[in-house]
């Protein structure tokens, strides 16, 4: 299996705060990696380093063969292949559902308007919302918005999808719809890195789980290893807390 992501000695500081400390991390093609850990551990920062929404302080972040930690890399080209889904959806409020999905492929000349439209219909069907094609964003529920955000990210046909706590801002009854879409993607072989507190999802879908605390990767392994035979004491405490809740 070839590596799509290879992170070495990644550091990230915000002023005097050291958010990430010497992270080594990789993701293979078609792999689903779930990042777990307490809040403030640096999970989101690690994820956002993978498309340089947070620029690394030092270290290398090689995505598809290109080190995006280097300033001379055309980051826009790299991002075209890396879809991202945010905790708060971040759908473009000034555009309709269809325009949200079609904007990037048409603006970046990946698809003609006609192709993009057909593609938008296909993706909306995939997330189960084709009837919302011409809706405005405020007319949709949170769960619907997040599924459309996934469709928007998929519209660029990315090689890799990043999910930053995609269900944390949702009402409980909406969570399942979004997770179902993500499971469907995983089954189709999409390479995914997911930051989440949904342990059920991690157990069921992840090929590998990475536990991050205090800016470091403390343990990683298969779901079976992580949930049934954890070795790191901090991971044990963390799992006790989340699984009891």
């Amino acid at each position, binding site marked *: 299996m070839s590596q799509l992501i290879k992170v070495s000695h990644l550091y990230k500081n915000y002023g005097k705060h050291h958010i990430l400390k010497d992270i080594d991390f990789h993701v293979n093609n078609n792999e689903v990696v779930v990042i777990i850990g307490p809040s403030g551990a640096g999970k989101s920062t690690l994820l956002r380093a993978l498309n340089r*929404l947070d620029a690394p302080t030092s270290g290398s972040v090689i995505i598809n063969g290109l080190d995006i930690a280097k300033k001379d890399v055309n980051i*826009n080209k790299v991002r075209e292949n890396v879809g991202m889904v945010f905790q708060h959806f*971040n759908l*473009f409020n*000034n555009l309709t559902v269809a325009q949200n999905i079609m904007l990037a492929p048409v603006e*970046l000349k990946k698809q003609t308007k006609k192709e993009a439209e057909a593609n938008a219909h296909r993706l909306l069907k995939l997330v189960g919302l084709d009837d919302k094609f011409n809706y405005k964003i405020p007319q949709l529920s949170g769960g619907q918005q997040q599924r459309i955000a996934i469709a928007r*990210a998929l519209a*660029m046909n990315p090689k890799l999808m990043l999910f930053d706590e995609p269900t944390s801002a949702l009402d409980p009854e909406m969570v399942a719809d979004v997770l179902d879409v993500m499971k469907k993607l995983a089954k189709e072989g999409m390479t995914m890195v997911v930051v989440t507190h949904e342990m059920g999802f991690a157990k069921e879908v992840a090929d590998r789980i990475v536990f991050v605390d205090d800016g470091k990767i403390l343990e990683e392994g298969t779901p079976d290893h992580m949930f049934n035979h954890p070795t790191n004491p901090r991971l044990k405490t963390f799992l006790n807390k989340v699984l009891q809740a």
Partner: protein
Amino acid sequence: MKKRFWKWALGSLIAIISFSCLSLMGNQNSVKAAGEPTYQIGTDVTFPPFEFANSQNKYVGIDIDILNAIAKDQGFKVNIKPTSFNGAIQATQSGQLDGMIAGMSITPQRKATFDFSKPYFESGVVTAVKPGSDIKSLNQLRGKKVAVKTGTEGAEYADKIKNKYGFKVTTFDQSNDMYQDVMTGNSAACFDDSPVMQYGIKQGLKLKIITKPAMSGPYGFAVDKGKNKVLLTKFNNGLAHIKKTGEYQKIVDKYLNGKGGTPMGEDNSFFGLIKQNKTVLFNGLMETLWLTIVSIFFATLFGLIFGLLGVLPNKFCQGVSTTVIYIFRGLPLLVLALFIYTGIPSLTGTKVPAFVAGVITLMFNEGAYIAAFTKGGIQSVDTGQMEAARSLGLPFGKAMRKIILPQGIRLIIPSFVNQLIITLKDTSILSVIGILELTQTGKIIIARNLQGFKVWTIVAIMYLIIITVLTWISNWIKRSYKL
């Protein structure tokens, strides 16, 4: 990449600056190109009988008629620029004007900065009080207030004797305001040149003169020191000639002894004033609207450019934006207007037409406000919108144009309409540099007929009507965009 966005911002900036330069140069050329000598002469507009607009709103008066007679006699042309006394002084010193004639007394102090013609009129300062007042001499002014007009002989006289007689001095920019202050009883007396006061009383001004002319002072035509010698010589030659032919005496008699050029018989009722002045008031209103439209156009460009600079991810651009907003929002509009109109010609030697100076003033001032709320509006768009756009691979400029600006602009539309209304009102301040907009029109009408209260009421109603219409439009925009 950011490059495209940069190019766009820079291009607009260059366009706006070059436009300003072009319009300045264009004007200069037109002045130089005129083959016959045409002199720009400044005057006060509110100093009857020496200079005032008659009921047909033509500038007349002793000064104007003498100047025109001399110009005709000596074969040159004059373009009368009615500003204010102080405005004319500054504009003459800065080279905006070639000379000034404004009932200006020749004093040693003024001789330091001006070259004067031979005296063309002898005047003196008199004291006037309300008809019912028991003040009969200067001695009775102790502890009271005396109204004067800035920059006049009366003001200097008051300054000289205020300690001796123990009164306080209140200064005004307009003659009518000074008279009004005495008539309402705020000030016990006012000092003014005797012909001015005589003329005013003849027009029905409710004041009486209680002293003989003091500090007799000769009036002279003035040019900036060391400049325009030719013009000064022509004036002196012409003056000597029209005195010889008797034309000079005819002019003086017309204003001080006869009835010619007086606005007696005007209908000074509220509707009479409207009827009589409807054309000039309408022209003033049009000038106000035109000034507003041109200014808001450039102010919007200016504001958008500096507002957008402030949201670029670049420390230098943000610094430039913050500084520009700080400076132009911090300066009082009046100071900025006078600085641009009189300061820039002093620095560069280039004349700035009042209208252009006015537009530049408003562009900077209103533009700074527009820049501030543009910046704020864009910054208040959720950062997640930019992150989402960038995460899809859209370059910064494209993300700005397609996602951030449409949302930011929506947020700033109400502030923008508000700024438009403020700009309309702020044009009134430009009356100080002599732009004939609605407020200046009002001042000129009042200088002639001394009907301050009624004329200001008419002017105020005209402003209110326009602002009401703008407010309706603004509410309609807010409703239709569901802002």
